[in-house]
């Protein structure tokens, strides 16, 4: 029956069912990822964010939730300008992190 509205699909993530193998490999290569406090400074300073939805904060969150495809799609919009690295209050080399993620996931795709 059409009531004129619908039930939205759940956005819940069951962490028990998430495969974090790739994320753990990334953690070995980029231990600084643990320092992220998800403040969003990287996203706020990103020139690509407004036009493409690029966000390092979201990319890290997506990886922790096993959403690898979304991350890879998002990172393809990065121009590697390095502004996020300059503003990070935790001193994370986000530019290097983005490159490491791309490298790791490209290897996986092969």
């Amino acid at each position, binding site marked *: *029956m059409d*009531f*004129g*509205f*619908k*039930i*939205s699909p*759940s956005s*819940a993530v069951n962490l028990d069912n998430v495969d974090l193998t790739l994320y753990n490999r990334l953690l070995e290569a980029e231990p600084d990822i643990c320092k992220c406090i998800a403040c969003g400074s990287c996203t706020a300073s990103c020139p690509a964010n407004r036009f493409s939805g690029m966000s390092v904060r979201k990319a890290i969150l997506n990886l922790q939730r096993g959403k690898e495809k979304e991350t890879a799609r998002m990172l393809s919009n990065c121009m590697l300008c390095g502004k996020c690295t300059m503003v990070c209050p935790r001193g994370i080399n986000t530019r290097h992190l983005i490159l490491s993620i791309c490298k790791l996931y490209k290897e996986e795709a092969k």
Partner: protein
Amino acid sequence: MIYQGKQKIWADYQKEIPDDHWYYVRSCIRQNFFPGSEKMFLEICRNVLGKDFHENASHTTCGGIAYHCDTIPQETVMTIVARQFALMTEAGYENYVASCITSFGNYIEILQTWEEFPELETKIRELLWKACKREFKKPKYVAHASDLIYKYRNLIAERAKYRLINRHTGEPLKVVEHIGCHYSKMFPSKGVGGAEYPYVLCGMIEAWGGNVIDYPERRHCCGYGFRQYHVKANRGYSISNTHKKFESMEPYHPDMIITNCPGCPYFLDRWQYAIAEMEGKTYGENGYGIPVFTYEEVAGLVLGYDPWDLGLQLHQVAVEPLLDKIGVEYDPARKYEGLNHKNLLRPELPGVLKCC
């Protein structure tokens, strides 16, 4: 559920509730949703327990729905509430009990605001005087009606004809308790048991023989949330919330749900029909839904009142399977017979959700 942990939280959030002499104010919407509930509250308090509860036909809405929908400013709500307090003062009462959760939250919020900003209270007193030449004393105690049934739960249990026990298996019924958001999420110290896991309904369930079940989305909103439902474009959000709750409680096979808010029982009840029609899914046993009750209805049931006098025929989800489980006597032929033998007419049966 780690029961010892909950007990510690509950012990930190207990409040003294006066025993008698209350000024009772009704909800705007409960009488349309489940009309037997407020009548049963007064019946239990006055006639079963012999307490003094005063009601005044002149009282109005508290303005809470309009306030939470952002359609009237808080000063207007405060003046409406000041008039209610004036009616209480004129009747000679000091303890104020609200039937509605939003009203309760609204009264508490206003009294706290007046504590913080006394000049605002002075302004409201002036506005009230200009509007209707009335003056008021602030209530000594504001309670929600479920606080009182909680306080009287053991007295009710002593007089109970039935207990929340499956008579076929002898096991306690598995009960989901759902607390209205405005009960203590805004002011945790004003609710029995605090904000996270209020004890008010758990206490009743335990006293009347049932077992409270814990599930992941236990504290999630029922989905009503005024602006979610009243704006038609947002109704998908409303039903999605309810759907999330049911999906979360389904693996625990609850026998019934008890709520203490006007909107929650209505939406948890009616959305089961809508979810069944949209997705073909039902959450109870054998194609039925999970019956949803107000705490007054459950108190009335355990005290042995006729289910149809409690207004249970106005629920969307059939209550008969649960009545059979508890062993409550009822006459199926009287289901749609109203007061003075008025024929309420049989509703059309839904396509998916099984009803009696």
